[in-house]
Structure formats: structure tokens, C-alpha cells
């Protein structure tokens, strides 16, 4: 390859990397945390889920039939059963929907009943527009972080477009990075931590970039697809065939046909269907069930499964009498290779297709994706302070470093603060009322820490403070849980809570140790003098 081409690729890699560094860190770090949000951290965050996430099929059958008799007949058209698996609602949730409204509402309306997963006692009920119910469902710290990763809480479409474009830039950076590091096999293990910070960071950037290249390309590609699909890609693709009507396109391909009600009574064998699904795919988790024309001869049941050998999530179609019809894509009964590829994009991005080991791999690789733009930015900045004619003064270098620590470190701090907050909220605030706290605490902690970066202090001191505070936030989780939590390391009611609390403590102490070990310059609270 010509040297001018390499130089161009290097400049492209640098410019895009520098422009998107902070945002890419934000999305990648929150993504690394979000990998564990469902179901592990969601179970940790909700005491109701900690005793059990599995409700016996017979109990589900009993509850569906019991409440089916209590709701008006129009609400029996569609029944959704959301399992308390930690992927959706934190309670066993039965949603009886009337698509055509009722005497009070002209829009889709729902009657909802939510039960404790263990005791099956009725905890909550709702009657009103379906959209409002789904929009106001209880969130928790891990779900909040997961939603932040998806659209930065900027709403749709702006948030999704931004994260989608970051996926494109990550893809571009990964591809150009591979071209410019031609000595990739020689540099596979080159990490000289004893040669000084600049060399260590440069080596770390190359090692993470080379080893993580396949992962970064996959995440960039899938992230771009997930972010832009519903906002730009589907409407564009629907432009010719459906006049730009994306909803019509989705309906044509994915609509589950409504059964014709025969008015011949035949009990819908929900428990047999659930047991059959579990025996067919023992490693998969049943997320939810949709029952159409319940207790009718033409009843149809659709189960959504996640994980197992299929990798991608799937939809199982059963007749009401328990007869298995077919397994299909979770998008509907669509043929062809493209849909199979698209199906796999989701588990490839989320890493949620086969248990905790794969999730840990995704967390490690996700953290390297987050550290890549950061290390690249640091390389770019330090290069500009070197030489006989540096383009960046020492003062400006310190300010840039403080900005990076404030924005990126601030995000880490804000995310970590949500975990002790979750324990406090579980103790003091009921149900969906908790939702009002996560946003303000998260964004004000982040903003507050970013504003601290304006103070005239050395960036190493600022970084030390950031590490200590992050460590303190995480370390506070276990003691708080012991003091006010329902299940904790002392009563050992939930193994998952014990493991998560212990890991939080371990990571928190590691941050504190790193912060204490960090050597300061002689003047930690005075800005570095201009050269």
C-alpha cells in the first residue's frame, strides 16, 4: 500500500476517533454494563424477582383462566403473559387487551394484573390505554443504564440516530485501524508497561484494537443497524414498495394473523404448551406468551424464547389444544436468508444468547471498545505536546485531560451511583414511583462531576478523586444492602444478590486501591504552568 494512502487512512482514523472519542466511550461503557442488565442485574435490583423467576405452568394457566372470566369479553381477544424472568416486567404480568377500545377509550386499552412471582399474590392492577401502561412501567438502575445506552435518553429519533451513527463511525475506525497497523501480527503481544505511560497507552491501544477488531466491527455494524433501522433504513426500504409507510411494511411481513373465533368452547392448554416448549428448548428462557382467542377451538398461542441453541430469539406457534405448529423468527413468519442474518445481529450485539460466560466475554470486550477511543485520544493529545514546536500547551493539555476525566469518568461515577441508589429506593419508594429518581440522580451527578473539571487542579489529582469516588459508590452497595436490603450477604436468601454485592465490593475496592496508588505531582491543586 502506498505511503500516502496509509497517511490518509491514519488521518481519517485520527480525526473520526478524536471527534467521537467521548461519545463512543459513553455508549460503549454503558453498553458493557447493559450486557448484564437483563436478567442478572434486574433480578438484583428487584427483591420480588430474587426468590424465584419461574412460575409453574399450571399456576399461569389457573391465573389466566381466573382473570379471563373477570374481564369483559372484548379484552379476551389478546392476552399477553409476561414471565418474571428478569427480561421484561419484574412481576408476573397478565395483560388483557382490547384492540378496538371500549366504552371509555377509543384507542387500544388494557386491563393488567401483576402478581408476585413467588406468592402469586395480586400486587397491582391497571385499566387504561395500553401505550400508557407500557410507557410508565417500573424501571430500575440496570434498565435505566440499558435504555441510556440505546438512545442516550435523548428520545427517539434523535437518540437512536446518534447511537446509530456512532456505530457507523466505530465500524469505520475499526476498518481503517486494521489497515494502518500493518504489523498486527508482530504487535499482537507488544505491551511495554514499564516504558512509561505514553508507550503503555500506545501499546494498549494497538493490542486492544488488533485483538478486539472482529468484535468492534461486529458491534459497529450491529449497532448502526439497530440504531438506524427503524428511523432511516426501514422507511427508505419501504419507500418504493409501500410508499414510505414503514408500519405497512412491518405489518405485511411480521403480522401474526388474527384467528377467526369459532365460538366453540375448547380450553386452551397453556400449561401443556409451556411444558412442551421447555422440553423442546431446555436451555432457552420463555420471555412471554401471547394467547389469541382464549378457550376457543381456534385459539392460537405464541411463545417468545430467548437463548438456547437457536442463538437468536424465536417465536413458537402452538394451537390452543397444545399442538405445536412451527418455530419462526421473532419478527414473524418470514422466509429467506436475510431474516436469519438479521435475527443473529441481535444476540451478536447484546451477547445474551447463552448464559453468564458469554456475557462476561462481552463485558470485557465492551470495556476494551470503550477504552480504545479514550486511549486514542490520549495518544493524540500527548503527541501534540511533544517536540520542539508543540501545537498544544501544557495548560491546554491539562484542561483537555480534565474534560475527558469529567465527561468519561463522570459517566462511570453516575452509573455507579445508581446502584446504591437502587437499594435506598427499594427500601423507601414503592413501585413505579422509583422512576422519577434515576434521571435526576444520574444526570446531575454526571454534570456535577463535569463542572468540577473547571476547577484549576492537576488532571492526575482529578483522576485520583474520580477513582476514589467511583470506588466508594460501588463499595457502599454491600453495607447498604446489609442495613436496609431484604436479601443480602448476611441472610444469604439469594445467591445472585450475594455474588453481585461481593463483586461490587471487589470492584469498588479495586478502584479505591488504584486511586490510592496513583502518584500525584507536587502541586495537585494548582494548574500546570504554561511552558
Amino acid at each position, binding site marked *: 500500500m502506498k505511503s*500516502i*494512502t496509509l*497517511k*490518509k*487512512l491514519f*488521518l*481519517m482514523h485520527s480525526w473520526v476517533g478524536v471527534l467521537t472519542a467521548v461519545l463512543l466511550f459513553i455508549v460503549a461503557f454503558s453498553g458493557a454494563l447493559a450486557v448484564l442488565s437483563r436478567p442478572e442485574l434486574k433480578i438484583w435490583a428487584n427483591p420480588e424477582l430474587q426468590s424465584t423467576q419461574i412460575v409453574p405452568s399450571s399456576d399461569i394457566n389457573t391465573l389466566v383462566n381466573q382473570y379471563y372470566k373477570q374481564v369483559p369479553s372484548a379484552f379476551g381477544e389478546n392476552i399477553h403473559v409476561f414471565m418474571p424472568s428478569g427480561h421484561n416486567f419484574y412481576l408476573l404480568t397478565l395483560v388483557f387487551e382490547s384492540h378496538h377500545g371500549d366504552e371509555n377509550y377509543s384507542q387500544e386499552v388494557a386491563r393488567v394484573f401483576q402478581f408476585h412471582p413467588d406468592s402469586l399474590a395480586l400486587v397491582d392492577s391497571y385499566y387504561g390505554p395500553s401505550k400508557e401502561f407500557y410507557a410508565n412501567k417500573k424501571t430500575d438502575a440496570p434498565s435505566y443504564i440499558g435504555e441510556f445506552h440505546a438512545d442516550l435518553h435523548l428520545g427517539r429519533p434523535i437518540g437512536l440516530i446518534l447511537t446509530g451513527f456512532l*456505530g*457507523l463511525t466505530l*465500524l*469505520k475506525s475499526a*476498518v*481503517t485501524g486494521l489497515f494502518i497497523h500493518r504489523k498486527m501480527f508482530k504487535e499482537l503481544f507488544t505491551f511495554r508497561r514499564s516504558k512509561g505511560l505514553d508507550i503503555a497507552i500506545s501499546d494498549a491501544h494497538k493490542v486492544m484494537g488488533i485483538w478486539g477488531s472482529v468484535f468492534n466491527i461486529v458491534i*459497529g*455494524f450491529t449497532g*448502526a*443497524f439497530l440504531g*438506524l*433501522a427503524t428511523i*432511516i*433504513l*426501514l422507511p*427508505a*426500504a*419501504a*419507500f*418504493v*414498495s409501500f*410508499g414510505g409507510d414503514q408500519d405497512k*411494511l412491518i405489518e405485511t*411481513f411480521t403480522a401474526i394473523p388474527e384467528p377467526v373465533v369459532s365460538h366453540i368452547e375448547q380450553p386452551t392448554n397453556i400449561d401443556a404448551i409451556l411444558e412442551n416448549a421447555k422440553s423442546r428448548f431446555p436451555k432457552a428462557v420463555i420471555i412471554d406468551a401471547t394467547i389469541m382467542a382464549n378457550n376457543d377451538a381456534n385459539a392460537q398461542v405464541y411463545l417468545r424464547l430467548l437463548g438456547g441453541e437457536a442463538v437468536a430469539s424465536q417465536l413458537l406457534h402452538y394451537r390452543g389444544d397444545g399442538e405445536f405448529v412451527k418455530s419462526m423468527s421473532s419478527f414473524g413468519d*418470514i*422466509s*429467506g*436468508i*436475510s*431474516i436469519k*442474518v*438479521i435475527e443473529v445481529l441481535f444476540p451478536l450485539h447484546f451477547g445474551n444468547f447463552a448464559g453468564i460466560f458469554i456475557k462476561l466475554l462481552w463485558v470485557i470486550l465492551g470495556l476494551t471498545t470503550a477504552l480504545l477511543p479514550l486511549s486514542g485520544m490520549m495518544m493524540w493529545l500527548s503527541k*501534540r505536546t511533544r517536540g520542539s514546536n508543540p*501545537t*498544544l500547551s501544557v495548560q*491546554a493539555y491539562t484542561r483537555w485531560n480534565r474534560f475527558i476525566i469529567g465527561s468519561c469518568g463522570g459517566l462511570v461515577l453516575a452509573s455507579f451511583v445508581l446502584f446504591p441508589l437502587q437499594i435506598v429506593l427499594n427500601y423507601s419508594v414503592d413501585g413505579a414511583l422509583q422512576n422519577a429518581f434515576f434521571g435526576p440522580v444520574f444526570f446531575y451527578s454526571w454534570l456535577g462531576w463535569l463542572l468540577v473539571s473547571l476547577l484549576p487542579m492537576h488532571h492526575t489529582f482529578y483522576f485520583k478523586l474520580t477513582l476514589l469516588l467511583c470506588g466508594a459508590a460501588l463499595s457502599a452497595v454491600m453495607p447498604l444492602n446489609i442495613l436496609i436490603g431484604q436479601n443480602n450477604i448476611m441472610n444469604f436468601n439469594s445467591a445472585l444478590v450475594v455474588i453481585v454485592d461481593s463483586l461490587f465490593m471487589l470492584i469498588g475496592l479495586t478502584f479505591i486501591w488504584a486511586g490510592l496508588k496513583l502518584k500525584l505531582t507536587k502541586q495537585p491543586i494548582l494548574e500546570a504552568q504554561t511552558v
Partner: protein
Amino acid sequence: MFKVSKNNKSTFKAIKRRHFLACVVALITAVIIIPGMTTYLPFHMNEQILLPIMLFPIIWVGLFMYAYLAEHVWQPFAVMLLLSISHGLLSLLALMQGKA
């Protein structure tokens, strides 16, 4: 805040036009290509719609890189213009045929 290196100016000719091509025109071209591709791909309707959607990130990255790597700035401009016009016309024809 930063001094622009003279080396960057000599590496890329017409740097501002390349920025515009890469950041704006490449995106518009890639988006126009999607409906255009649905008109000529020789597959079932599912594939005709899903394949261009899947190819979008690759097309965009390719156009983005070409905007900077091409020796002369008119080259990527001509390619993107040709792609946009051709796929736009294909989409328009298909729409008009559909309405008729």
C-alpha cells in the same frame, strides 16, 4: 486551540470539499441507494427489502473512505452523484409504475 498541520493540507487536496462529501453526500447517497436497490435485486420481496438494509453500513463506510482516499475530489463526487441519480431514478420509475 490547535494549529492545523501543513502536512494535513498537503496529504489531502480540497480538504473541505472532501469533508462535505464524506459527512453529508456519502450519507445521502447511501440512503438513496437503499430504495433503489429494492427495484433491481433479483430476489424474493423479503430479500429485496432486507438485503439493502443490511448493506447500508458497508456502503456508507465504503463511500466515506473513498471520499478521502480518492486522488482527485471530483472522482468520489462523480461516483456519488451517479449512484444517487441512478438509484433515485429507479425508485421514481418504480413508484410511478406502482401508481399506474
